[in-house]
């Protein structure tokens, strides 16, 4: 029933315990927000879910299967910084995932195939409100527009799970609000499972269907780094998947596969294009 399952996870860095005894099971279509003190290991936890790093102990299962030890297209990601490719225009950033899938050699399409891909991403470009900026480079976009693009790019391949590490931490409050609307819309339309680390408690409560708090349970004042953080609170906020219709009924992989969300370009337009450049 759960897309993501974490069992007895622990992480040490050079003998320092960062995370310990983390157990978590996330239902398909959940929007999990994660909060915790700075440096407590939230990003580390996300890196492990990505497969970028391996846990010292425990394991992570995706759809019941241990995740491979490297990032794969079933788990998309958006970081606070460096989430889009500075050398590609907005349009090319969105086309990149498809080009990678279809041109396994060079990773680059030409001629008709290239035009085809660009046509396929046109709708997504519109949905993230960047159609007027398709030919700009990321360096010419505001922070909010960049994060919008990063999210769009992460969604092109329709990942099972979307991981977000403080994606809006550097944005102005007004722009942040627009981004919240955008991410909620996309989440509802695609039905994917979202895992979002944030420092903004308000944001965490507002967006999540479930709030996870990381903290150290035990402190040794003489050896402050002897114990790692774990999950200290795990609050359900609202039912996981808003379009509840296609939620899988049981731990049936086939059913889980069927719950694959609809393509973004098949989804209705959000109709809003916030944060147009001044």
């Amino acid at each position, binding site marked *: 029933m759960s897309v993501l399952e974490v069992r007895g996870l622990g992480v040490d860095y050079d003998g320092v315990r960062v995370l310990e005894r983390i157990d978590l099971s996330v239902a398909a279509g959940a929007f999990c927000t994660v909060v915790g003190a700075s440096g407590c290991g939230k990003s580390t936890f996300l890196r492990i879910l990505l497969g970028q790093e391996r846990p010292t102990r425990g394991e992570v299962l995706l759809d019941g299967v241990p995740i491979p030890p490297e990032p794969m297209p079933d788990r998309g990601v958006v*970081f606070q910084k460096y989430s889009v490719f500075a050398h590609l225009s907005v349009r090319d950033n969105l086309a990149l995932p498809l080009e990678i899938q279809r041109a396994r050699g060079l990773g680059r399409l030409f001629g008709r195939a290239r035009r085809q891909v660009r046509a396929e991403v046109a709708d997504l470009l519109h949905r993230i409100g960047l159609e007027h900026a398709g030919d700009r480079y990321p360096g010419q976009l*505001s922070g909010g527009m960049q994060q919008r693009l990063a999210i769009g*790019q992460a969604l092109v391949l329709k990942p099972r799970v979307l991981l977000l590490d403080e994606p809006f931490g550097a944005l102005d409050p007004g722009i942040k609000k627009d981004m919240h609307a955008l991410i909620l819309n996309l989440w509802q339309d695609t039905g994917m499972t979202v895992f979002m680390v944030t420092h903004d408690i308000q944001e965490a409560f507002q967006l999540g269907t479930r709030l996870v708090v990381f903290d150290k349970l035990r402190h040794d004042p003489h050896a402050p780094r002897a114990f790692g953080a774990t999950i200290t609170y795990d609050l359900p906020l609202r039912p996981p998947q808003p379009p509840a219709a296609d939620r899988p009924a049981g731990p049936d992989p086939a059913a889980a596969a069927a719950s694959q969300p609809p393509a973004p370009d098949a989804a209705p337009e959000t109709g809003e294009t916030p944060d147009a450049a001044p």
Partner: protein
Amino acid sequence: MRLINQKPSRIARYALGALPFAAVLLIYSVASKLRHMENPQDRLLPSLQQMAAAVERMAFTPSKRTGEYTMWLDTLASLERIGIGMLVSTVLALVLGIAMGAIPRIRATLAPFVGAFSLIPPITVLPILFIVFGLGETAKIALIVVGTAPVMTRTVAQATADVPDELLVKVQTLGANSWQIVTRVFVPMVLPRLIGAIRMGLVPAWIFLVSAEAIAAEQGLGYRIFLVRRYLAMDVILPYVAWITIIAYVLDRAFYLLSRKGLRWAHGEGGAL
């Protein structure tokens, strides 16, 4: 107002920039005149007229021996060598540098060796270079390559390693294999630094070109300088040196503009709109 806040106007900037050149010319003229008063046949500091005459002879009068224009032949020969040499260095730097920067195994294997190799002064191993590459064009080009490629490779390797981890994770979540990561992320992201490395590399490249041509050549700017040095023909040497400097300057600018025009994304102009 503080000195650091006093900004000269555009015209003042040009005037100030011309100053040191004018000063050098003036000092030279005076020194040359003084030496000629002492010894009318002095060759060390020819007058500007003498240099002009030499240029006229070398660049605009066909050689008696071959009927060709010496200075242009020399220029073409040297440019060809430096062009091929830098091309080889660039390809080596790109291939090795990206391999080293991207693939941990290759980095572990090559980084110490390239590091050590880049510290060998190439002119000390000239005999070996000439034995391995013969004395033809290959050896001259090889000297340029040996002198520039290791440092350029290190620059590219560093640039590759500097690509943020986040981007590598991101492209992997988009399903890229290692080769695609190279073609779609590393190569394009490293290009601006590669052009920077080429510009930096052109300075030693000229030095090695001149050294190589001094040893085995029948044409080339460096060859001519060394040939006429036996007679202390500074009236030829100085214009040749000035000419080399001008060419080097033009090449440097050309690469800079290439980078600005061709890789607009890397030159953050316009900023966030």
